[in-house]
């Protein structure tokens, strides 16, 4: 059963989401490579594109809280640190880095880091959103 989503109003700078665990299975990676038309042989047979990791980490994050209608993903910072292989089990950690009002909008920045089953850092970064103020 999925956790109850946190309301946007409850998020504050420094808020830490509970970790998410997900596996990079071969079906997901194959689907991702088809969707992105990425035919680089480097990924054969078992390397996962780093943006596939980022996409699944963002999906895990988005399940944690309620994004308001009108939210726009405006910026993305990512560092790729270690190769992820198919069937690796990853844990993502997200934290509200910044939540500030700017006129009629709010800016929300969420920091993210992803570790593999050996506790190696594989990805880190920040995601920036702009939301309309109610």
């Amino acid at each position, binding site marked *: 059963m999925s956790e109850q989503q946190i309301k946007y109003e409850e998020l504050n700078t420094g808020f830490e989401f509970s970790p998410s665990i997900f596996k990079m299975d071969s079906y*997901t990676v194959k*689907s*991702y490579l*088809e*969707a*992105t*038309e*990425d035919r*680089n042989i*480097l990924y054969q047979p078992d*390397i996962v*594109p*780093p*943006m*596939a990791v*980022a*996409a*699944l980490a*963002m*999906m895990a994050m*988005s399940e944690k809280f309620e994004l308001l209608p009108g939210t*726009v*993903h*405006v*910026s*993305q*910072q*990512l*560092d*790729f*640190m*270690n*190769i992820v292989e198919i069937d690796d089990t990853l844990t993502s950690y997200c934290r509200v880095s910044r939540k500030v009002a700017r006129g009629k909008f709010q800016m929300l920045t969420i920091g993210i880091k992803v570790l593999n089953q050996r506790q190696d850092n594989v990805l880190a970064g920040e995601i920036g959103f702009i939301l309309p103020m109610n």
Partner: protein
Amino acid sequence: MGMILPETKIVVTQEHVKMYAETSGDFNPIHLDPVFGEKMGLGGTVAHGMLILAYLSACMTDHFGRDWLTGGSLNIRFKAPARPGDIISISASVTKIVPEAEFTSVFCDVLCQNQKNETVITGDTKVRIR
């Protein structure tokens, strides 16, 4: 410095947007429902920003290989949506090369533009080459 890496062009299709939604779990109707996109003033569906960013990252992998996977960084802004039917040109130009003890850092400016030369993504990347 100033070296321009080979440009890549890719056509955004609704089919790929749908496939990306299924893979990423992002089923926001702005990506999938043209009627909803019209209602939102978008003139139809728009691609996931992360899909276009995936194209950019794929180009960096083409240029830098495994080094991009183990020492790549990107810092970008989404400036405008890409739509099905758009032809996205992805370009990168080297701005700085810094030799360090165990690797060399290569810095690039990156740009994704549509067929009208409108900027979709702008930003910079860094890759540590061993």
